[in-house]
């Protein structure tokens, strides 16, 4: 069974928000209708987005890590948002594990959003239906697109390629390998939702310099007579003893 998902590499995400806007650009211009904005040019503008990039500070100065943290629907393998939906508008696809909302069935009761611990769903104020990341289901299977384009919009836009896309059930997929080898983890494991999306942690590269590596035999200072030889006339053992 296939489970498509995003794997987000916090080790390289710089928080540029390109995924946020490209997601909205793709999804707002799709058949499913616009993702509305209220007060777009006035006070407190607000609108529907499927993907948000947040920033956290971890630790205290000077040992601070600034973490940019993109978050969209995690396409849980055990999605608590699905069974609670009274209409069946929220569903998880058997064939690829994508969790979707059928906007034509949704009554806008918001119950599914209460059942998502991740805050991944947003009710569209204009259309009054629940929305969330679709994993760009209308791109990834669109055979009229070149294969390289059959990826989620956010993945395509990410300049640091912090967003990987693939089948987390296929052990040989790039995403599975990344999860396995780079310590991929799921959010809020305590709820047993088994998010399909994973996050890769920060990883540090350090350099170890052994003390004896600092000065080498070919140190250029020697060439320039900077590690000086004592003058011939300076006293030596020869001056005080014989053997």
């Amino acid at each position, binding site marked *: 069974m296939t489970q498509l998902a995003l794997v987000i590499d916090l080790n*390289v995400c*710089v*928080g*540029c*928000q390109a995924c*946020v*806007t490209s997601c909205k650009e793709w999804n*707002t*211009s*799709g*058949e499913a*209708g*616009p993702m*509305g*904005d*209220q*007060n*777009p*040019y*006035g*006070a*407190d*503008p*607000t*609108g529907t987005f499927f993907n948000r990039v947040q*920033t956290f*500070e971890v*630790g*205290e*100065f*000077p040992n*601070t*890590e*600034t*973490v*940019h943290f993109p978050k969209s629907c995690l396409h849980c393998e055990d999605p608590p948002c699905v069974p609670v939906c009274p209409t069946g508008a929220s569903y998880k696809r058997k064939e690829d594990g994508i969790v979707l909302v059928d906007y034509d069935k949704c009554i806008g009761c918001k119950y599914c959003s209460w059942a998502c611990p991740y805050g991944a769903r947003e009710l569209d104020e*204009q259309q009054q239906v629940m929305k969330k990341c679709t994993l760009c289901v*209308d791109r990834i299977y669109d055979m*009229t697109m070149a294969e390289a384009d059959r990826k989620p919009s956010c993945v395509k836009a990410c*300049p*640091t*390629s*912090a967003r990987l896309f693939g089948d987390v059930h296929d052990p040989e997929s790039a995403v599975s390998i990344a999860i396995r080898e780079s310590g991929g983890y799921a959010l809020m494991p305590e709820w047993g939702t088994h998010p399909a999306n994973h996050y890769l942690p*920060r990883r*540090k*590269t*350090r*350099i170890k*310099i052994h003390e004896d*590596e*600092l*000065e*080498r035999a070919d*140190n*250029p200072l*020697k*060439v*320039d*007579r*900077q590690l000086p030889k004592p003058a011939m006339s300076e006293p030596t053992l020869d001056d005080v003893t014989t053997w």
Partner: protein
Amino acid sequence: MQALTGMFARQFGTPNYAAHGGFCSVNMAAGMIYTIGGSFWEFGGPDLDRAKLFVMIGTAEDHHSNPLKIALSKFKRDGGRFISINPVRTGYSAIADEWVPIRPGTDGALLLAIIHEIIATGLYDREFLVQYSNAGQLINVDEANDEFGFFVRTEVPTEEACYEPQDKLWWDRSTDRAVVTHSPGADPFLLGEFKLPDGTPVKPAFQLLQERVKEYTPEWAAQITGIPAETIRRVAHEMGVTARDQKIELPIAWTDSWGREHDTVTGNPVAFHAMRGLAAHSNGFQTIRAMSILMSLLGTIDRPGGFRHKAPFPRPIPPCARTPNDPRAVQPNRPLDGMALGWPSDPDDLFVNDDGSPVRIDKAFSWEYPLSVHGLMHNAITNAWRGDPYRIDTLLIFMANMAWNSTMNAVEVRKMLNDKAEDGEYKIPFLVVCDAFHSEMTAFADLILPDTTYLERHDVMSMLDRPISEFDGPVDSVRVPVVPVSGDCKPFQEVLIELGTRLKLPAFVTKEGERKFRDYPDFVVNWESEPGSGIGFLAGWRGKGGEKSLRGEPNPNQWEMYKKNNCVFHYELPKSYQYMRNWNKGYLEWSQRNRITRYAEPILIHIYSEVLQRFRAAAQGKGFSRRPPEALKKRVETYFDPLPFYYDPLEAQVTDKHQYPLAAVTQRPMAMYHSWDSQNAWLRQIHTHNYLYVNAQTAQRQGIDDGDWIWVESQWGKVKCMARHSEAVEPGTVWTWNAIGKAAGAWNLTPDANESQKGFLLNHLISEELPSGAARISNSDPITGQAAWYDVRVKIYKVGAGETAITSPQFETMKPYPGMKARSSILAYLGIKAK
């Protein structure tokens, strides 16, 4: 655009033309180009493909931001080590393996201490310095001598068209005497003191550098920068050991300028990148010189894994273009006799009157800022308003929001734009603004020229402009309109061509005074730098049938050919021309043949800058005919030090640091482009207003809670804004996002939009001038005139009880223009995806 606007100004005959580089990052350009013949910015960059250690200094976003992000993540994935030196940890710095928080304006101290440590431990690339820099060249150190501080020279046969003859000396180790540099078999001492046969005491430049940095110990720098000495030492060792022990050797044969053949290209994989965090300080030029020298000590110039040039760089030091040096170059109804901007190499290149006073309104290329190679736009309005050095009639501003975010002291400058003289005439009588949007600037215009956006017009990214080249060769590109022109606007390019034609400026009309170019696309194709030169705005598909590159006759189908090729022309150099280009015979001759450069001599790195020494000598009353005016002598003598040194930024020198204990800086938010992205309904949801980020402990000491309204006050003004606690900022620094705050009503936002009610502009706290004795002088680097945005010092305190929760200062709400529609309160695109 700069190439076209500059050309128009020159044809018009004004000396008063400047581009945004002066308030942007000219310190970076000048500091590096005067040292290594190329620079970060569009002119070169770090080779992150091959680097093992990457040191990023004072960069939040930068000009080539997406390419940089791509390279950075690839670098990290390949296991490279990334160190970021920055008072703030955001964006790129967030993903650094190590964050080195530094006090703003003190990088010079850090870099000099690292140089100290590199030299003290012998971790420099001696071979590289000997062959490719002036480190081994002998300098006259006889203080009594007129030639003190200059390289000693000898007679050598010089070829024609020689820019910097190789007539300097080394002290050869094996023969223990002075020899002409690069003499076959010679190997110079880099350290020591010698006497020429005529008794002149001389020292190699490197010896002087070692002496210079002797006192600059890590312990000394720790006091200034706030970085522990052991960190400085460790970082220096990481740089030195990585450069030395992880050498890259590529099987690429090449020939150096002295005719020696090399089987391989080697590289020391330590790459640097720096931008405005270094540049936007008044000690930035010398700091950037120090960085360039550190990069050179590590042997990383135009080598794999280090710094790489982008065509048309490297260029001779300094590049050959000169401004006129005589006020008589400015004549009515005649083109300016020379380029409006250029690269002075000695005091005789300054554009000053006979009494040493500036010719230009912004005082660029004067003794105040001799190497102001990009001009000083940020002083044009204040100077014109004051009539110092003279009053002007017309100010034409294109694509710069100088009533807001690209001006210092915005409150006062806005008054100056409207101020009247006693005679009732406006001090700046006629203000023409070419803008594409409803910016704060347009509110002051007598005449607005509504421009198109880049989607509606032809554009060229030309080699004559900011190049967009890659490490492996020259690149240029074009834009073609993708949507029809909307509204009553006209591309500024067309406006300039039309103006030039109607004014009968020589470049735009035939000898008979007839129109030469139909429009801008026609101009781009057919204009040549001089008749038959084969050099035009675009380098690709030249020649009658598009068969030539770089040089060739105009090609009537050039636009078509660009379009067919994705609008980009990329000329890939042969591998053997891709590295070591300062001294790569093949490359230099290729570049000379293609008229990218006039001279093909090797471009030796200026560890010791004789150019600076020439100005210093003039200030000391030696050598050259031109001398600085009395009031500026000390200034020129101090700052034109031929070796890098550290000094407190000029503003700090005139500030009581106890009263204003904090440094205030800005950064680019990745999601916003300067002032104009607030028009974008999606982006403005991400940055609707800005906060002042304050280190949590610093804030708590002032009783300032997260989210509190505070006053931020400098010597020059104060703003009211909200504070945000942060652990990712050095305790002596406060910062905010650049240009998020807006004037009420601007950009067609509603007057109650958060941008103007809660957002604020730090520029209100920054002065465009500093007191200088009785006079005033630009708040800029004393060498280059770079605007010192990041020098301002502030104090912060909570607002008083009852003070309103709204930013201050506030300005009269900007009115919509006739025809501007009110914005809807709902935005929902009804696009249908093309199938």
